[in-house]
C-alpha cells in the first residue's frame, strides 16, 4: 500500500469511528443531544487522543526511551496533585487557571523524573519506566493523603480514571489547547527528531538542546494537564500509538507525527465506543478500557520489539 493510500484509509477509518461515536448512546438522537453531548464528546475524544499520543512521542524522544509516557513518568500524577492543591487553595479559580496550575505541577514532576534518571548510573530500557512508575506512585500517595484530609477523594478519583461520559458543551473546550500544541509540535518536528538522536548529536548539529527539551516538556505538561482536568488520566495511549507508528514509518516526526496523532485519536474513539457498547445501556470508562486494551497491545509490542532486537 502506498503511503498516500494508507493515509487516506486511516482518515476514512477515523471518520467512520467519529460518526459512530456520534450515533451511539442512550436516548434518541436529536439536534440538541447532538450539539450538547455527542459532538462535544466526540471532539473531546479526538483532541485528547491526538494530544496524548503526541505528548507520548515527545516524551519518548526526550527521555531516549520507548517506554515512557505521561502516566509512567509521574507527569499525570503530578498534574492531579497540582489540580488538587489549587482546588484546596483557590476553589473558585476558573478552569483555565486550574489547568495551568496542574500544568506547572506536571512540568515540575517531569523534571524531577528526568533528574532522578540522571542520578541513576546504570539504566536499562526497562528501569526507566519503572523509575517513573515508582515516582508516580509516591506523588499519587501524597495526593491521596491530601485528598483524604480535605475530603476530596471523589474528585481525585475522577482525575485518575479517564471518562468521557460527563463531557458536555462548555465543559471540554480546554482540550482545544491539545490541537494547538500538536500543531506547534509539527512545526518544530525536525528539532524534536534531532533531540531524539541524543544530546551530543543534537548539540553537534547546533541545536539549543535545553530549549528544545524545555519546549517538548512544556507541550507534554500542558496536554497532560488539559486532559486530566477535563476527562482524567488515560493510561498507555501515549505508549501504544507512537510505538505502532514507529514500527511502520520510524521516528522522523516530520513524517510520523500526523500518523501518531491520528492513531491516538482513533484508538481513543475505538476504546470509548467499546466501553459504551459492551455493557449497553451502561458504560465502562475509557480509562479502564484503555488500561486493558492498551496494556495488552503494549505487552505485545514489548515482546515483539525485544524479539527483533535480540
Amino acid at each position, binding site marked *: 500500500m502506498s503511503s498516500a493510500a494508507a493515509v487516506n484509509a486511516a482518515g476514512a477509518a477515523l471518520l467512520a469511528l467519529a460518526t459512530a461515536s456520534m450515533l451511539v448512546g442512550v436516548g434518541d438522537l436529536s439536534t440538541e443531544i447532538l450539539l450538547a453531548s455527542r459532538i462535544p464528546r466526540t471532539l473531546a475524544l479526538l483532541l485528547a487522543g491526538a494530544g496524548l499520543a503526541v505528548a507520548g512521542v515527545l516524551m519518548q524522544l526526550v527521555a531516549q526511551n520507548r517506554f515512557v509516557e505521561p502516566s509512567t513518568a509521574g507527569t499525570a500524577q503530578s498534574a492531579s496533585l497540582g489540580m488538587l492543591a489549587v482546588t484546596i487553595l483557590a476553589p473558585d479559580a476558573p478552569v483555565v487557571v486550574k489547568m495551568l496550575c496542574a500544568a506547572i505541577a506536571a512540568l515540575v514532576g517531569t523534571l524531577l523524573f528526568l533528574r532522578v534518571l540522571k542520578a541513576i548510573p546504570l539504566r536499562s530500557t526497562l528501569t526507566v519506566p519503572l523509575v517513573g512508575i515508582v515516582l508516580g506512585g509516591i506523588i499519587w500517595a501524597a495526593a491521596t493523603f491530601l485528598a483524604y484530609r480535605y475530603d476530596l477523594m471523589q474528585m481525585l478519583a475522577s482525575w485518575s480514571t479517564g471518562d468521557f461520559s460527563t463531557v458536555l458543551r462548555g465543559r471540554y473546550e480546554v482540550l482545544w489547547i491539545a490541537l494547538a500544541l500538536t500543531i506547534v509540535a509539527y512545526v518544530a518536528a525536525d528539532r524534536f*527528531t534531532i533531540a531524539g*538522536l541524543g544530546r551530543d*548529536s543534537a548539540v553537534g*548539529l547546533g*541545536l539549543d538542546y535545553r530549549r528544545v527539551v524545555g519546549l517538548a516538556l512544556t507541550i507534554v505538561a500542558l496536554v497532560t494537564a488539559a486532559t486530566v482536568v477535563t476527562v482524567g488520566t488515560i493510561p498507555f495511549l501515549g505508549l501504544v500509538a507512537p510505538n505502532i507508528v*514507529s514500527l511502520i514509518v520510524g521516528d522522523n516526526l516530520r513524517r510520523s507525527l500526523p500518523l501518531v496523532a491520528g492513531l491516538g485519536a482513533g484508538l481513543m474513539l475505538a476504546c470509548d465506543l467499546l466501553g459504551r457498547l459492551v455493557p449497553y445501556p451502561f458504560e465502562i470508562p475509557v480509562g479502564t478500557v484503555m488500561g486493558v486494551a492498551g496494556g495488552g497491545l503494549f505487552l505485545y509490542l514489548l515482546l515483539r520489539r525485544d524479539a527483533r532486537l535480540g
Partner: protein
Amino acid sequence: MIETQELTRRYDKAAVVDAVSLQLPEQAFTAIIGANGAGKSTFLAMVSRLMPASAGRAFVDGLDVATTSGDVLARRLAILRQDSAVTARVTVRDLVAFGRYPHSRGRLTAEDRAQIEDALDFLELAPLADRFLDEISGGQRQRAFVAMVLAQDTDHLLLDEPLNNLDMRHAAGMMKLLRRAVDERGRTVVAVLHDINFASCYADHIVAMRDGRVIAEGPPEVIVTPSVLEAVYGIAMEVVSVRGYRSVHYYR
C-alpha cells in the same frame, strides 16, 4: 584553526585534563593518543562544547566555543562521539540529512540533497540508505554517523574513536577516507585513536596525552619511537619500519 589555552577539567580535585595549551595544525590530520583515562575524550568533548571546561578556553577559528552560539559553531565544527547508540528509529538517509540541518534548518535544497547523496556514496552506504538504524550492524551505524558528520560540510571534524565497531577492512577504509577529507577537501581532522599503528600510518601530527597532560606532540617520526611510546603507555614497545611507515609491536 583549533587552539586551546590552559584547558582544564576537574572532577572534585583530580584534574582529568590539566591545563592543556595546544595549537592544532590546519588542513592536517591530527591523532590524539594515550592510555585509557589519559583525558583524550574529555579534551575533545570540551573543544567540541559538549562539556564545559573547569578552567581555560578553547577556540575554533578564533571563536570561543563556550560563548559562541551553537548554530554558528555547527557550520565550522562537526563532531562524532564514541557512543552512537540511538533509540530514535530513523533511516540512514534521514540521519545523514540531519547533517545538513545547520545549513538548511530542515528545508533541503538541491545542493543539500547532492551533499547527502555524496556523503552516502563516500561511505558506501547507498544500498542501506532506506534502512532504519536499528536494522543495520554496529559498524554500519558508525559509518552512517560519519556520513552525517561529513554532510555537515565543516572545515573541522572532531572524531572520538572513529574506528570503534569497525572491522579491519572498514577501519582502514575509514582512515583512507579521513585522509582524503584532508588531502582532497582541505579539512582539518582531529581523531582520538587507540590503534597506534593507524595513527602512525595516516596522521600528520600526533598528540600524546598522559594523566591529563600533553607529554609529547609532533609528526609520527618524532612520536612513534620506543622511548616516547613507553612514556605514554607504560609498556615496552618495539618500533619497526615497514614500507617507510613506523609500525609498533607490543603484543607479547
